[in-house]
């Protein structure tokens, strides 16, 4: 594998679809420095600075009361839908604009890991708050992340934490916290779930202020035994206990491997580092990672954001109808940010390769090709007709076309937008 192929592989996985220019720069730096630059960006992210989170206005739910009329509720619903759509589009735009691609992709990883859906949380403000928490702690050690998440208002609402009280513990959050977020199935017992639920009692969400607060009288202060340790655990102490379990860092490292490297090649045993950035360094440096080239099915968001970046399309610059198409496309592909299908997160691998997803990809590819920036299209058409499939490979950062795809692309060389669309749905592009 050439240096260019090595850095292209790294950037395809670590970020949302690199541009050819980004691969050029990484190739000049060399693989080792390219990884350093990803993990420790040398300059502040101007793209992120230019795309601050949207001012959402007030949370419409905060002004609803028991006396609110049906009309007031409908009005609040409509406002919330509009705010969530704005937030989703902002996030997509940020994914495209950011220069620090590793951080943005990692945020999406954590979103799918602590999979929380606006469908039940019903608040753009709380979803944004959770993203900010995940961003703040995403690269660091697990302890602060878990401690912050057990007090995250969106997660508490999503898993019924606000209904978990001393009198009648609700186990939902405690169970998923161990099964899906930290230890994995088999790493705890039913008794641990019950005791963990008691430790988490007392946290409620004030829907007016959007803040989680602790209510002493709802908390069970008694002695609990969790994972073999006894004490008067509260949420913070329980989170701390989970974070110090060797099983937790190992579990999260396997989850990172699952998303960044896939399932074809087993995860190396010693990936887990003291913090997530260190784990990612070990992951991207491993020889096993190299062997995963060409095997990982892009999740729909990865596919679409990568294409937007490479084709020079900014979601914020699209008109109303095109923005609807963008969100409609993700909906048809079954992956809308802020709306994971369940607390288990999104599927992976061949689950994204069905006939119905291909149809949705074809529709989206047509839309993306139609909105491609003229300057990008010019780079494609600057190549002589016979060289356009190769120019397309460079544009889409595909290492090369197989005979099958080249045969499909060649007849389209004279129709650059169709050529683009075909490239976007090709097996080489869909599976990176």
């Amino acid at each position, binding site marked *: 594998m050439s240096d260019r192929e090595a850095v292209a592989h790294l950037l395809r996985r670590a970020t949302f679809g690199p541009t050819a220019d980004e691969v050029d720069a990484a190739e000049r730096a060399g693989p080792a420095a390219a990884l350093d630059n990803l993990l420790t960006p040398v300059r502040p992210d101007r793209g992120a600075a230019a795309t601050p989170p949207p001012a959402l206005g007030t949370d419409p739910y905060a002004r609803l009361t028991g006396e609110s009329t049906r009309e007031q509720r409908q009005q609040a619903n409509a406002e919330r839908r509009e705010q969530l759509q704005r937030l989703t589009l902002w996030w997509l735009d940020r994914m495209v604009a950011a220069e620090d691609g590793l951080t943005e992709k990692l945020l999406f990883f954590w979103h799918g890991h602590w999979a929380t859906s606006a469908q039940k949380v019903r608040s753009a403000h709380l979803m944004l708050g959770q993203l900010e928490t995940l961003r703040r702690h995403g690269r660091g050690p697990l302890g602060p992340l878990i401690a912050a998440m057990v007090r995250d208002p969106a997660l508490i609402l999503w898993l019924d934490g606000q209904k978990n009280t001393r009198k009648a513990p609700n186990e939902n959050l405690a169970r998923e916290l161990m099964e899906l977020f930290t230890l994995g199935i088999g790493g705890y017992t039913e008794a641990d779930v019950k005791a963990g639920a008691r430790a988490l009692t007392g946290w409620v969400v004030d829907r007016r202020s959007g803040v989680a607060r602790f209510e002493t009288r709802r908390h069970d202060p008694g002695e609990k035994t969790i994972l073999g340790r006894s004490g008067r655990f509260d949420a913070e102490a329980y989170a701390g206990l989970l974070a110090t379990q060797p099983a937790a860092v190992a579990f999260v490292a*396997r989850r990172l491997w699952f998303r960044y490297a896939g399932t074809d090649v087993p995860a190396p045993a010693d990936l887990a580092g003291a913090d997530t950035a260190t784990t990612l360094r070990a992951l991207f440096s491993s020889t096993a990672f190299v062997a995963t080239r060409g095997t990982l099915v892009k999740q729909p968001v990865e596919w679409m954001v990568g294409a937007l970046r490479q084709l020079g399309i900014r979601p914020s610059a699209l008109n109303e109808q095109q923005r609807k198409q963008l969100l409609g496309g993700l909906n048809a592909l079954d992956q809308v940010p802020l709306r994971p299908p369940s607390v288990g997160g999104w599927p992976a691998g061949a689950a994204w390769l069905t006939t119905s997803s291909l149809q949705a990809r074809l529709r989206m590819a047509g839309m993306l090709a139609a909105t491609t920036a003229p300057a990008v299209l010019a780079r494609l058409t600057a190549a002589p007709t016979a060289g356009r499939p190769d120019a397309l490979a460079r544009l889409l950062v595909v290492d090369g076309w197989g005979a099958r795809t080249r045969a499909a692309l060649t007849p389209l060389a004279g129709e650059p937008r169709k050529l683009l669309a075909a490239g976007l749905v090709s097996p080489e592009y869909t599976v990176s």
Partner: protein
Amino acid sequence: MDTLTRRRFLLTSGVVGAGALAAGAGAYSLRDLLDTAGDRDPQSRTLVLVTLYGGNDGLNTVIPDGDPAYRAARPELAYPDGEVRRLDDDFGLNPALAGLHQRWSGGGLAIVRGVGYPKPDRSHFRSMDIWHTAQPDRPGNTGWLGRWLDLAGGDPRLAVSFEPALPPLLAGARSAGAAVPVTDRKAARGLPAETLAALAAAEAGESAARGRAAACFADLRSVDEMIRQVRDSADADAADPDGEQAPATATGGGRTPLDAQLDLVAQCVEAGVSTRVFSVSLGGFDTHADEKQLQAVLLGQLDRALTGFADRMSRTEAGRKVVVAVYSEFGRRVRANASDGTDHGTASDMLLLGAGVRGGWHGAAPSLTDLDDGDLKYTTDFRDVYATLLERVLDTDPGPVLADWRGRLAGLF
């Protein structure tokens, strides 16, 4: 295989095993099914398996309101006297199950009580794996009906899912059932047919995933055809995703409305397709909080879909050979939590209706007071029911499918 990668919600379709991938799960269209019309022995029966994802609360479905312990455990959540639809002196059905209640009165509904398995697992994902694989000790990579399909010759059209993704229960070791999508609206256009045909070619040395990506193009033509035949479900898709009719819980489940899935089953059965097993599902039963209203909405959907389907099936010869079985991965805790909901429990009821099913009670009702750590003790092993269905509906020796399981549910047929 990594326990994580076996999970339904991370894997949904196709990834249930290399064999399933190679067999091209998801590659079949309704036309492929309808093309088999007339291929089957007219005497053979059909099994329709209805999975309720999320853990349906059995005690508020078939309600033991004759037992004072029921109200004592669930003061707010219990249905008051007079609201329950009476089955006998001690039990009643949830008020939302009007149609099923009518069938019960006519002897057309069987209720198997206290169905579960030893050492219950309260994780949705693990417990659903157990029900899918029928391997409580260590759920493997194959589903029980997938193993049946292996024995039956492996033609994917024998076992069909109208869910958005292939459920693990239809994945065998050497073959896999077909997942036929029903939510597509318009066929894709924009690229010439020749391009799509060219992209369908296999490429030597390519990864399995890229091979699968290419195979999707091969399937597209038949899907195009299917879309012209299948009732467009665009209206259902266009509904407000947060609307009151779409209860939100965190454990997933089929997005396609159950009645749309059952409509397709009905169409296939009436056409006499070769399919012997259909898998359909309804999700959203994870009612940790404010359960009553949410569950009633879902049970209402279930009731309308099931009774509409059963009525339609009763009108044709082929339809009268269909058996419907309804289950969920577990029931819920006997005692309500403080959120007017219930946490994950264990044993629950299965409902069966259709051809030759003997209506009424089967199995013993679990005690509400002699509990296993707050949960019902199961009285019927779910493999007894599976074995009976294999034997009596699919005419198959359950031994090779269910690891020589000996139990049967006597008197069900």
